[in-house]
């Protein structure tokens, strides 16, 4: 089965970008940009402002990718799945939540924060927002293999789990008091579709090779930057 990338969206310290606009992807350095509802969604979405930072970042990445693929508008729920790689997951939310527990023997534990202490909760938010009923899970790979999510997304299509997969990664910067090395802060998601012929506006054909590399139009990549370089023709 051939698999095509039909949309890309990201939020990194270098900015917010989309694949079909031919924005140039980079992780950048420093703080992630502030995410406003108006920049990401055309209609009112008051829940967005109430999400924890991790969920807001992940949902933004998914929203940008779906918009890039022309799949952000919907009327009926759709069998689109999501797999999101993360290293730290919702650790920052875990800390914020448990601090509400410690402060008063649990009497003031925040139910709102607790709902976001599962790394996959933002996938549920995305499913609700965009009507996605495919399989959805968060993956934690070893050593922060940052494009591992592509293999998982490609496999989901090969296994016939659903016809379209949104796959990517999402991580906040490590909490200041818990220094965990390595890894980029930000979110990047791709929309993957199976089919012999490339759909209109395809950003390229993607595969996973036996050496553990992603290939985009035949060019191997082991990182998001290399994948972006493969797309722009920079070798």
């Amino acid at each position, binding site marked *: 089965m051939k698999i095509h990338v039909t949309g890309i969206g990201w939020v990194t310290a270098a900015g917010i970008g989309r694949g079909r606009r031919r924005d140039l992807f980079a992780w950048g350095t420093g703080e992630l940009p502030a995410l406003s509802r108006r920049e990401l969604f055309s209609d009112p979405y008051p829940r967005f402002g109430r999400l924890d930072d991790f969920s807001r970042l992940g949902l933004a990445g998914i929203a940008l990718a779906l918009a890039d693929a022309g799949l952000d508008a919907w009327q009926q*729920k759709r*069998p689109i799945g999501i797999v999101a790689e993360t*290293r*730290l*997951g919702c*650790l920052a939310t*875990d*800390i914020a*939540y*448990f*601090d509400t*527990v*410690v402060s*008063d*023997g*649990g*009497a003031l*534990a*925040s*139910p709102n924060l*607790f*709902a976001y*202490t*599962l*790394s*996959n*909760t933002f*996938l*549920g*938010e995305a*499913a*609700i927002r*965009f*009507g*996605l*009923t*495919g*399989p*959805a*899970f*968060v*993956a*934690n*790979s*070893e*050593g*922060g293999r940052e494009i*591992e999510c592509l293999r*998982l997304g490609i*496999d989901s299509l*090969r*296994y*016939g*789990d659903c016809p379209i997969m949104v796959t990517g990664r999402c991580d906040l910067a490590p909490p200041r008091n*818990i*220094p*965990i090395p390595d890894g980029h802060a930000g979110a990047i998601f791709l929309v993957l579709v199976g089919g012999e012929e490339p759909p209109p506006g395809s950003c390229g054909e993607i595969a996973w090779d036996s050496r553990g590399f992603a290939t985009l139009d035949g060019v191997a990549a082991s990182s998001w930057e290399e994948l972006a370089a493969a797309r722009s023709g920079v070798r």
Partner: protein
Amino acid sequence: MKDVVICAASAVTALGDSLGESWARLLRGECGIRPLERFETSGYFSKVAACVPDLEPGRGGSRLTTLLERTLGGFAEVPPESLLFLATTKGEIDLLELERRGAEIDPRRLLSETVLGEIRRRTGVKGPGVNVNAACASATLALGRGAAAIACGDADAALVVCCDLVSEFVFSGFSALKALSSDRCRPFDAGRDGLSLGEGGAALLLMERSRADREGRPVLCRLLGWGAAGDAHHITAPARDGCGLILAVKRALQVAGIEAQRVDGISAHGTGTVFNDLMELTAFRTLFGDRKVPLHSVKGALGHTLGAAGGIEAALAIRSLESGLLPPTVGLRHPEPGGEGCVSAEALTFPGRILLSTNSGFGGINGALLLSREEAR
């Protein structure tokens, strides 16, 4: 598609350190939900949980290390090249609790990859590993991923390990959500009022049939089908019409290539919350019509073991298929309307050929597995 079989299974629960002991006590209708002594519960809605007895912190300070030690101790030899799937929602969350209370910990242990490393150390598995986090359907999805990889020929062995702890972190959260039962939970009972938390671990070795035969491995059961789907409805509450669960089961039936009428029994998620159990009964009625398919939930005995639930329940399902018995739904007094004739406080006999196991979780995710008895060949 290649035939996927389960060759080895272990489980550690509040009712025992082995699958056999857990099964035997479950069948006797025993309950592992007891007053909590692990942390102070005076500020919480419930005072009980199903803790694994004598589960003390291990090396590095987490109880998860000890749980893994018991789950994997004496487990079958695992092929080193096996794929590795972990299913845990919160991993070594007890270490985060310690850190927030001022203790010094190794921060890398807050990452799930550390648990994967611990499993590798204990089993010698060298193949690619990943933690699957799909809330309380984590193990079910992990088993489905492992099975799909084998069925498609990507691998011929996969080890799935699932584990989660009873922690103040999770207990306080469910208490704040008012999702805990004030007493021991009563799945599918008309008077149920919430769930009881539990902890446990399970390990299952999946293999491609011909390899299992070639190596003379015991075939405990076949994994016929798997499916996962979302409700796209609410992040903590299930869709009342069971739409996501229905899709997940239909997908599992499609993978298995069987019709719904072939399902002989159900190991339900059955948390004991008003909405989950009602949602499941609604979904099963949609899927199976007026046919009274025997069903049970283990959570009245073992508590809700979160990400581990689907793995523990799959391991117990093997015993159900072997014996033709569905364990009692502990805590049941008066079945929820719609559950009469399906669910019982006594063990139920069923034909024991094909069992459906289902789980659902936060984020609106649902998972389904179809397991079948290994027929004499």
